């Protein structure tokens, strides 16, 4: 996936790694700043909103738990889209996007699990309950780790690209199936009267901070993703140059 190969394909604005890096250099600081601002505003509004009538103050965890769960899904969907880019359109940067998104997605999924279990502790009395949503997010976390392990195992980028793209797509197709089966598995054993975490309608004053927080964390995710992609391109450039240096060592 080195430079001169990319020029052969249909050039979309981001196809050329060098141009991608220059664009990324410009966009990242702005995106990062915006993300920080949005998160700050959301948390400030969240902490000034009235407490939830049933759960008291622990509802404040919702402001970060829901965005994290959303980002876990968003991250995997982005990887699936990039995987399509690798397999269907052969976009040179698609594989870079998959490899870069995996660890960040995994981090947010882990956060979703942790905050979910902390939020559930007062209600259920234990740190972990095999609640349908928490379990499917946990399975998603395993799929993220599988993808990261695959990317680490195959160090030759071109070979790993196809493999991780296929795995990402298969994983993505399976998410609804897992969701359905876990729900079914959960209701099968658990007494149905599991306390529903978020009420049927969220009060407006709680909804706004939630939306802004979700926006903020999504921007944060995109910032990290762009930075990770830029690093991945540099890593491949370093590898290519090291191979070159090895071949040059004889002539020099």
């Amino acid at each position, binding site marked *: 996936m080195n430079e001169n190969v990319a020029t052969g394909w249909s050039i979309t604005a981001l196809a050329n790694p060098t141009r991608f890096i220059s664009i990324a250099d410009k966009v990242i600081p702005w995106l990062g700043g915006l993300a920080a601002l949005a998160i700050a505003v959301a948390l400030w509004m969240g902490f000034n909103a009235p407490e939830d009538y049933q759960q008291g103050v622990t509802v404040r965890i919702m402001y970060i738990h829901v965005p994290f769960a959303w980002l876990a899904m968003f991250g995997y969907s982005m990887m699936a889209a990039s995987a399509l880019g690798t397999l269907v359109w052969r976009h040179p940067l698609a594989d870079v996007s998959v490899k870069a998104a995996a660890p960040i997605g995994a981090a947010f999924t882990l956060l979703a699990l942790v905050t979910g279990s902390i939020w559930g502790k007062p209600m259920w009395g234990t740190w972990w309950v095999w609640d349908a949503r928490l379990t499917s997010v946990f399975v998603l976390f395993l799929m993220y780790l599988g993808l990261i392990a695959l990317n680490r195992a195959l160090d030759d980028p071109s070979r790993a690209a196809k493999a991780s793209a296929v795995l990402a797509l298969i994983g993505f197709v399976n998410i609804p199936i897992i969701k359905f089966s876990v729900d079914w598995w959960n209701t099968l054993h658990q007494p149905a009267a599991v306390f529903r975490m978020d009420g049927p309608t969220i009060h407006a004053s709680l909804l706004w901070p939630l939306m802004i927080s979700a926006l903020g964390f999504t921007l944060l995710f995109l910032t990290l993703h762009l930075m990770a992609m830029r690093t991945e391109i540099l890593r491949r450039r370093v590898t290519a140059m*090291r*191979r070159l*240096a*090895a*071949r*040059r*060592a*004889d002539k*020099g």
Partner: protein
Amino acid sequence: MRLVVETLSGERGGETIFAGVSFALGAGEALLVTGPNGAGKTTLMRVIAGLLPAATGTIRFEGGGEAFPDVASALHFLGPVNAMKAALTVRENLEFWQSLAGPRHFQVCDAMDLVDLRRTADLPFGYLSTGQKRRIAIARLYLNYRPLWLLDEPTSGLDADSTAALAHFMREHLGDGGMIVASTHLPLGLDDAQTLEMGG
């Protein structure tokens, strides 16, 4: 220092591969083991290296003093593969082997200079070409001084000038009073080397 081998025979899987092999090597002398594939060259090399037990016969290393009391402590073994890890850098590989094999001889950097591959020190070993990998494998022999070199098909996979480079290192080692037992098909330009034809 002398390497004395008397009526040596080796077997593999219960079947005698070669028998009645005897030779003696003094300082600065080399023995080229030739013969068709399957004639037992590799088995002979592994028996001398102590990797395989000898069926009959003896292998003695005389005059080594306390530095090289027996054959095992006096030899370097270089097989058809390079014994280096692709994931580690060249320097890490060489430093590892130096730390394992007793008293130091050449520094890692000097050994790399000898084979003229100093620039690849920090590159992963896997990125090197076959010829370069072979030269690094040879550089390992310089890290700890051992009088006896056992080279099992040293020129496998080498092009012309890498083979010439290998012959050069071998001549240098003999010049320093070392001994070489090499199994090979190519005449390595070692003029006064003894030869041992392994029967079919």
